[in-house]
């Protein structure tokens, strides 16, 4: 009992990268949930940055994140509806959400340049993690061709975002 609780605590603390790596062979309903959750997290982070930042470049980037990730998620919702799939919650999605909630709270305490730097650095790390999960687990596991294709478009988009975030992080240093 104690051991199980400890293990649960250890899992809850695990960073999303580790959690995503653990999601061996998720099914399409879980993949759709993970992809949607990952997008929604970045939309929330972008909205926080739009509200808090005063830096022109950071604002442009954050607006781009909100716009692009919302577009992919709208497409994902339309696709699951068309396929008659109900996205299925799973430990990976839950771990992503828990990590994102903690990050939002942490960033909420920062202001000005400190916020800009922390937001952009987290965007670099977050997109790296999600891209790793997309190429390593989610895309190879996806069974439905349309879902796979949407994830591949997502990977191209998020890779662009990662480069953009890296450029921005270098500029803010």
């Amino acid at each position: 009992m104690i051991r199980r609780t400890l293990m649960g605590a250890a899992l809850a603390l695990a960073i999303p990268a580790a959690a995503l790596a653990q999601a061996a062979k998720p099914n399409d309903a879980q993949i759709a949930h993970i992809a949607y959750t990952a997008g929604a997290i970045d939309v929330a982070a972008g909205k926080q940055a739009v509200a808090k930042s005063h830096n022109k470049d950071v604002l442009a980037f954050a607006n781009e994140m909100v716009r692009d990730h919302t577009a992919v998620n709208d497409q994902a919702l339309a696709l699951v509806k068309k396929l008659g799939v109900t996205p299925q919650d799973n430990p990976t999605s839950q771990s992503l959400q828990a990590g994102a909630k903690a990050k939002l709270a942490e960033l909420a305490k920062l202001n000005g340049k400190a916020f800009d730097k922390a937001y952009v650095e987290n965007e670099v790390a977050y997109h790296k993690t999600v891209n790793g999960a997309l190429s390593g687990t989610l895309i190879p596991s996806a069974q439905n061709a349309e879902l796979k294709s949407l994830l591949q478009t997502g990977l191209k988009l998020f890779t662009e975002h990662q480069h953009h975030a890296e450029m921005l992080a270098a500029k803010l240093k």
Partner: protein
Amino acid sequence: MRRRAVRSLAALVAALGGALALASCGKPAPATYTVTIANMAFGPAPDGLRVGDTIEWVNADIFQHSATAKDGSFDADLPPHAHARTVLKKAGQIDVYCRYHPGMSGRLAVAS
């Protein structure tokens, strides 16, 4: 009234004919080429581009893009599923990128 309309129509036809005649002697008439952006990438650049030609940029993606010339000669904003036209005003190699996704790039070769 009707006679005047007929007369102005005749003048228009004559003017159009003149313009066509002007265009047909010497250089070929300007052409319009389509470049489609899909899946986060610019489609292939058309061959045989010349100064005066028009590029019709078509954004087939669900994302906002732009077709922006690195040399500043044009900058077309392309909301999802929108299209926009730019006229090529100078000869040479023109590098094009998307302002929102700077890794997306293409190159136009424009002859004078």
